[in-house]
Each structure stands twice: as C-alpha cells, then as structure tokens.
C-alpha cells in the first residue's frame, strides 16, 4: 500500500459520513478554544479550578435537563455559581483557595449526581455528560459551539495584554489601571464556556485534559505567552482531530482517546524539552551570573 492509499485509509475514509464530519468540526473548535483558555489556567496555576469547574458543571447540566432549558445556560449558570461560592469562601482567610474550590466542587458535583439519580429521564445520558459523545453532535450543537468559541477567543484577544500583566504582576497591573477583579471573573467565565464546549467532545470528566495538558506541554518549550498559545492550540487541534481519527480506527470511545492523545503529546514535548536542556547544558555549561554571588 502506497503513502496515498495509507493516508486516504487513515485520514479521509473516517470522515465520509456526515456525523463524523460534524464530529471533526466540533473537535477542531475544542482543540482551538480549550488550549487558548488553558494557557491562562496554567500560567495562573489554577488547573484545580479548571478541574473543579468541569465537575461542578454537572449540577447545571442536570438541572437544565430537568427544567427543559438549554444545557448551555445550565452549564454557564453552574460555572457562575461555582465562581461565586469560591469567591465567598476565599474571603475567609482561614480557608485557602484550594479548599474553597474543593468545597464548591463537591457541592455542585454531588447535587448533579443526586439530580440525575432522581430522574429517569436523564439517567441514560450520564455517561454522555461525563465522557462526551462527539459522534452525536448535531448542527445546532455546532452552531452553539461556534458562537461560544468565537466570543471566548475574541475576549482573550482583546484582553491578552491585560491578562498577561495581571498574571505576572497583579500589583503593578492594578497600579497601571488593569481591571484585575474583572479579569478574574473573565477567566472563570472562559473556563465555564470551555467546559460547555467540551461537553460533547470529551465530556465533563476529561475536559480538563484538553484545557490543561496542551498548555502545560507548550509551557515547557516556549518563552512568550504568544508562542505558548500558538503551540498549545497546535497541540490541541492535532490531539482532538488525531484522537478522533484514532478512535475510529481502534473502535475506542472518542473522548478518552482524545484525552489520551493530549497526554501522548505532553510526553513527547517533555522528552524534547529534557533533551534540549541536556544538550544546552553540555554546550554552554551552567550559566554563572556574577550579580547573584553577592559580596
């Protein structure tokens, strides 16, 4: 079998059907949005908040199903409630930020499971919420994902400089007029939108994989936020489309396969970074900076 046949067999044949084409578009959008948001989650060291918000979103999704309203609205509302609970608990200086997030996550996730357990209507869909079901995505889902992704990416583009300033040095950022508090809420909203967008693709349990892993991998080998974002998005897109393709050939669930692909990328990038450090150390030796030696 020649290269062309092999390529067609692996990368073209899986996308002959409409449902796989829709799945590819959904995967592409998640592959762009989640790492773009994830860059800020990683730089602000808030991966646990991202993980907790994805789990807490279950309450909003379950409530939305029970009430017969849009699950997007339910999920975004759960994100908002989560943010408010964490902010309120954090004001108590005896409770650390991580404990506040843990309490809020437990509350909302347990409410979500309880709501689902009390309803026959949505019981069958629990796995769908938790692990995603990308091949059932319809045109309305795609339109919703496109709108949410576009708004979130535009917000990141407009606030890029301010997000960078407040993440690196929040006191200086406040000093020069950056709206520090508003950006904090923006980040919570961005994570919430990412969880909603990831819902169909990788599900609530694994959305943190596409949020955090590509950005963490990119962080290992880049020196500016712009290049980190570009590489994270490249890893995100290749992971989501690659994972979807792989799941077709291996007959595995798409969500976990996409998540596993992001981890494979992380391992490759970490190995490259380690090799790069080793060869740099050999050729240059350890840098000695006289200023650091003191007197």
């Amino acid at each position, binding site marked *: 079998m020649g290269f062309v046949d092999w390529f067609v067999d692996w990368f073209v044949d899986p996308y002959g059907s409409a449902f796989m084409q829709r799945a590819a578009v959904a995967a592409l959008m998640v592959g762009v949005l989640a790492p773009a948001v994830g860059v800020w989650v990683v*730089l602000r060291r808030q991966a646990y908040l991202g993980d907790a918000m994805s789990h807490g979103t279950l309450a909003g999704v379950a409530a939305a199903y029970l009430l017969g309203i849009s699950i997007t609205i339910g999920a975004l509302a759960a994100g908002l409630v989560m943010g408010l609970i964490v902010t309120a608990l954090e004001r108590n200086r005896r409770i650390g930020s991580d404990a506040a997030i843990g309490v809020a996550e437990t509350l909302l996730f347990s409410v979500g499971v309880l709501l689902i357990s009390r309803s026959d209507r949505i019981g069958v869909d629990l796995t769908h919420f938790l692990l995603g079901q990308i091949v059932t995505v319809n045109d309305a889902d795609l339109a919703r994902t496109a709108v949410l992704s576009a708004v979130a990416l535009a917000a990141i583009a*407009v606030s890029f*400089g*301010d997000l*960078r*300033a407040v*993440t*690196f*040095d929040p*006191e*200086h*950022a*406040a*000093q*020069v*007029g*950056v709206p520090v508090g508003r950006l904090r809420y923006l980040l919570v909203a961005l994570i919430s939108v990412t969880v909603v967008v990831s819902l169909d693709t990788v599900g609530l349990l694994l959305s943190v994989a596409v949020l955090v892993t590509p950005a963490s991998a990119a*962080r290992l080998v*880049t*020196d*500016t*936020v712009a*290049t*980190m974002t570009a590489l994270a998005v490249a890893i995100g897109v290749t992971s989501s489309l690659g994972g979807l393709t792989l799941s077709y050939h291996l007959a595995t669930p798409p969500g976990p396969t996409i998540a596993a692909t992001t981890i494979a990328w992380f391992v490759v990038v970490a190995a490259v970074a380690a090799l790069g450090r080793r060869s740099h150390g050999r050729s240059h030796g350890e*840098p000695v*900076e*006289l*200023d*650091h*030696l*003191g*007197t």
Partner: protein
Amino acid sequence: MSHDGVPALRDVTFSVGAGELVAVIGPNGAGKSTLFKAIMGAVAHTGHVDVDGSHCHHRRERTAIAYIPQRADLDLEFPLSVDELVLSGRRRFLRFGRRTTARDRDMARSCMASVGVDNLAGRRLGSLSGGQIQRVFLARALAQEAGVVLLDESLSGVDQPRAEELVDLFAALCRHRGTALLVATHDLALTRRRFGRCLAINRRLVVDGAPAAVLDPAAIESVFATLDHPAHIDAA
C-alpha cells in the same frame, strides 16, 4: 494600618520632594513593604497619601506611582520578554482597544536605553542577572512615567559593584527626570555612603534625615530593636 488587628505601622508622616532619593531602612518585619503598599493603595489603611498635591488612591493618581517588587515575589520563569515587560508600563496611556502604538514602543525602547538594557530586549527575565532585572523594572517604571518609584529590596542579591552602579542610576534618574525614588534596603553602609536621606522604620518612623547625621548607634539600636509581633507584619 494593621494586619489581623495587630498594628503594622503607625505615626508615619513624611514628605518626599520631586527628584529626591530616599533610603527606607529597617529590619525584616519593620513594615517597609507595608509602607510601600500603603503608598500604592494596595492595602487598606487609615492614613493619607498625596501625590502632586492631590489625595491619592483614586485610579488616576495611583497610576503615577510605580512599585518594583522584591525579586523573591516574582515568577522569573514567566514567559515574558524584557521588551514586553517594559511595554506593560505604558498600559495607563492606552486608549481604545488597548493596543500599543509606535509611540509607546519608541518610548519603551528609549526607557530601556536610558537604564542600559536596550540590548536585552528579547531576553527572558529568568536569563538575567539580579542587577539587570532591577534595571528592566526601572525601565518599566520610566515607561509608566511614574513620578514616584518604590523599590522594594532592589539591592538585595546584587553584588557590591552592581549595587553601587544601581545607586548611580537611581541618582541620575532623580536628577534628570525629577523622579522621587524610595529604596527599601538593609544595607546601612551603602545608605550612609550613597543616600542623602533615609527613613528608618520599625513599625513607626524612628528617624528621618541625612544618614550620616541620624544613623548614630542609639538610633540604629532603636530601629533594629526586637519586634513585639514579628510574625504579623510586613506580610501584605
């Protein structure tokens, strides 16, 4: 001003003129960082801070004060280049869309040149020496066009010749730009030798004047006396 009900600073009244270079000395926990953060408006307090005659801590006035944090408080591995950092000082002047203009970039380059770091533009902070980092942050303060610059332990972790060069730079900025610089430091010898004025802090203003005149053994004993509640202060 207090933390958890324990007063961190009280009875601190002083004024600093344009172009004045002032050392702020005191032991760890004396309230030097707290004083700076109060001046910046970053911590709540019951005092008054006036800049250019107008009561401070409204947004417009705050932007004219620059704070250079202690090296230990910075994430030097953050993916940020020197020119990006200096340009962030222009944020207070950015208008619609918050995009920097060619004028902002020219200004940032000129500020980097005036503190001798224009050759470091694309470098990562983590690759710089202690003295270079202080110069880069000074360039950011200049790009901010701050009338008051607060430097928190800027001379720590910098070897003696570089510290002397930094003080030369501080003095030049004060003289030529009219910037008021307050430098928190532990280095009494350098303070005596190079600064025209020092504020000695130990939860209150102990002495204020020319170091050679006011830093006698009794004053030093008073400033560096054991603190009553060392764990609670200077931690804002």
